[in-house]
């Protein structure tokens, strides 16, 4: 089938590459066409995801994927128009819908995947009655986005038009083979479900962080508690990790959206407000531990940070704990040395040249002569460092483990002063 995808979000790229790889003919229409053409030429996309660069380049060279002008209407032969724009690009989405009516006798569907407020899909439908507008909320997990697109646990489809549903099912048939992953409901319900899922995940994380703070005062290791809790089938293991806070463009935004939605509708949600507050507080947990360790005076200290991305597998730092940590440390006169496998260019763009930020290409360069090491993002390469080498390079062997990936007993034996979260 011929499919046009409007937007340059992660969802747009993954959808384009994955659907092209299953044989569809795709035109991706990003807002900055010129920049895109040069990025595509270099074979490196702005958004980094495992496998995405390669698949994207492959599909371009196979001729099934091309890049086009966002202002142009869909090609006449197109069966589905995807809206995968950012939350602030509502006007753009509206424009695309108005020019998406198919030629007489042709069938077409508009599939909205953008993170707009609940009810937007129905509003978009009103703009162009000649084409059905459905919603397929994006449920990608960053760092494993392709995988989660190609082997979806579920596909939430908000659609009340039978013909449109048949068309969407046909497009996604290659990824829906083992069993039927489609869950069909009204557009509003699908939009709200997506927010509710995010809210629930965030709530679990903040709940665990609250428990972790309590565990510390009780002298209990939250990691043991987590395993015990996760073994209960009513709870399950996912999203129970205590740590230095969640971030990322999606999770925080969706929770905020949901919380705002509830407060403007007059319902109000004390719970979600707390969830966000606990998380924001948690992003500074490593700072607080360091502050206490050095007797509330950090002037002139050197601190190494391992991992800046909001999660492993991505270079993005939006709403990541590292933002708050950097500001907190700098305000106290600390020099910060950061290593991250992917996020260094983003940090350089964001903060520019400054004497108290040193970006390091190798983890041990960052920890050299440091008064403390903060482990913020649990990239696999950090899990088993050469601890002797690490300790010898540091000015003081202090490790603040924001993801609880190390064994406290082992580290203490190896001569480190260890701080975890909730242990």
């Amino acid at each position, binding site marked *: 089938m011929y499919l046009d995808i409007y937007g340059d979000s992660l969802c747009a790229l993954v959808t384009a590459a994955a659907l092209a790889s299953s044989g569809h003919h795709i035109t991706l229409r990003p807002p900055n066409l010129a920049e895109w053409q040069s990025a595509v030429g270099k074979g490196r996309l702005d958004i980094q995801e495992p496998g995405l660069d390669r698949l994207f380049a492959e599909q371009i060279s196979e001729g099934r994927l091309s890049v086009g002008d966002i202002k142009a209407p869909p090609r006449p032969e197109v069966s589905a128009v995807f809206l995968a724009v950012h939350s602030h690009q509502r006007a753009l989405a509206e424009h695309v819908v108005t020019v998406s009516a198919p030629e007489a006798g042709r069938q077409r569907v508009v599939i909205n995947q953008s993170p707009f407020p609940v009810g937007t899909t129905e509003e978009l439908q009103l703009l162009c009655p000649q084409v059905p507008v459905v919603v397929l909320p994006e449920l990608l997990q960053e760092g494993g986005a392709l995988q989660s697109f190609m082997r979806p646990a579920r596909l939430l489809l908000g659609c009340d038009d039978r013909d449109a549903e048949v068309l969407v099912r046909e497009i996604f048939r290659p990824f829906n083979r083992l069993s039927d992953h489609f869950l069909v409901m009204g557009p509003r319900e699908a939009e709200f479900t997506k927010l509710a899922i995010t809210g629930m995940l965030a709530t679990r994380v903040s709940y665990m962080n609250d428990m972790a703070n309590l565990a510390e005062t009780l002298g209990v290791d939250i990691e043991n508690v987590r395993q015990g809790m996760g073994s209960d089938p009513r709870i399950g293991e996912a999203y129970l990790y205590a740590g230095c806070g969640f971030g990322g463009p999606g999770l925080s935004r969706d929770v905020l959206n949901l919380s705002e939605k509830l407060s403007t509708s007059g319902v109000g949600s004390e719970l979600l407000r707390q969830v966000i507050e606990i998380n924001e*507080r948690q992003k*500074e947990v490593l*700072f*607080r*531990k*360091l*502050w*206490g360790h050095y*007797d*509330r*005076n950090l002037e002139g200290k050197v601190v190494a940070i391992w991992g800046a991305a909001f999660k492993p597998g991505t270079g993005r730092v939006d709403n990541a704990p590292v933002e708050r940590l950097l*500001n*907190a440390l700098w*305000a*106290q006169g600390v020099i910060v040395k950061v290593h991250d496998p992917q996020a260094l260019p983003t940090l350089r763009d964001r903060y520019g040249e400054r004497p108290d930020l040193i970006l390091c290409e190798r983890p041990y360069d960052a920890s050299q002569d440091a008064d403390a090491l903060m482990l913020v993002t649990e990239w696999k390469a950090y899990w088993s460092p050469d601890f002797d080498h690490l300790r010898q390079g540091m000015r003081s062997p202090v490790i603040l483990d924001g993801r609880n990936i190390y064994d406290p007993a082992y580290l203490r034996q190896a001569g480190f002063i260890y701080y975890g979260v909730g242990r």
Partner: protein
Amino acid sequence: MVWNDLKAHADELAQRHLADLFVDDPQRFARLHRKAGPLLLDLSKQRLNGDTLSRLFSLADARELKAWITRLFAGEEVNGTEGRAAMHWALRAPTGSGLAPTEVEALVHGELERMARIVEQLHSGQWRGYTGEPITDVVNIGVGGSDLGPLMVCRALEDFAEPAANGLNVHFVSSMDGSQVAHLLRALRPQTTLFIISSKSFTTVDTLYNADTARTWLQRALGDDEAVIRCHFLAVSSAVEKVTEWGIEERNCLRLWDWVGGRYSLWSAIGLPVAIRVGMARFRELLAGAHFMDRHFLEAPWEDNIPVLMALVGVWNTNFLDIHGHAILPYDGRLKYLPSYLEQLEMESNGKSVTRDGEPVSEKTCPILWGDVGPNAQHAFYQLLHQGTEPVTCDFIAPARRYHEDVHSEGAGELVRQHELALANCLAQSRLLALGEAALPSDEQVPFYKRYRGNQPSTTLMMDELAPYSLGALLAAYEHKVFTQAVIWSINPFDQWGVEMGKKIATSTLQAIREGDDGGMDVSTSGLLTFIRNS
């Protein structure tokens, strides 16, 4: 003799009702109002005429007002009994103004820079408490000038609160009996609370007791560690040694100087709570407004000089029309604490009965001041103004515009109508007080108990809007009014010996309460002590 001349003139004018004066001269408003910067001063509802003013100007000349103003701004020792200059004006002189000596200018602006850094740290959530959490609540502990000034301005400028300071609350604690501090501490978290101990001398008992309570409260929650004090206390004082003795490090102590009197100090680091509330840029606008008024006071001829006119009209009312009550009536709820502030400024400055030469004064000095937000006072003491037996002068104070600020985008329409209602009341009350029944449409016969005799003089001070700049100008105008009156009365407005002895006697009385030793007490005090001990 100018004084006797004025007495004779007053006897003549005393026969004339204010309503008659308005009939005599249709140009009365044009003749008797002045504008300067953001302020408009209307004296046309005072019981005087143009002739009165020129006689009062002669009085000012006879008392060498010009020379005294020069002495004030030259940094001379105008506070004789304490051997100090009074240079509050230097606190708001911008760099390079040439008004203050360069070394004073450097000191003042150095402290402003330090204030700016603290404000920035608090606003960005980077002032950390003992546990590393950002400070969310700032409590100013002070009394008198270290409380009323910042409290009054914080409330007055609430619409200008710094958006970056959202979530940062500013509180005030002053009363010595602990009722405010106990109430407040119940609602706060020690981990996120910062105290500003504001005391010029750092010996004020009221403040130190409250500070001790705060320290104990913190230490109970966080432990007895010197870092608790470092993270949770700032001091504003001229006595750095006493501050460090109490446990606050020098780098957490903002300075003021001997040459600033407590009730003139809100322009210094004493104004830190204001800067925290409205941001440093707005705080500097407040200073700029006051500096504008300093220049105006220095340079304008008497007939256009707002503070001088306010002062001379006050002298006229007190000494020649024999009126000894003065009400401060702001028609804007944000000026709620202005009456208390001016009560201190005027009564503590000019409530004196000894001249600069140490002789008893021969004429009355400062009248009794009191006041409240006008519309509320209308339901309280206005009855006495309209139909009581005491003559009273009033200052009506109001901004012309309100509720056009961004913060009021929602519901602004309704609020603007409420402000119009307040303004209408302001004008109606001053009119009725001045004219009495003549303000009413017809001269129908009414029983005595419904009559308004009028003839109560008042001044109306309007601002284009209540903003940092206009508020700064207004407050500085009152400061210079007070100085001008002190010159006319030949008294020192910058000392306050009358408040010292009570503090000393309280110390021995405390002994009596705690140890039961009534030796040397009068029978009334002994009787009361017995009741206290037996309760």
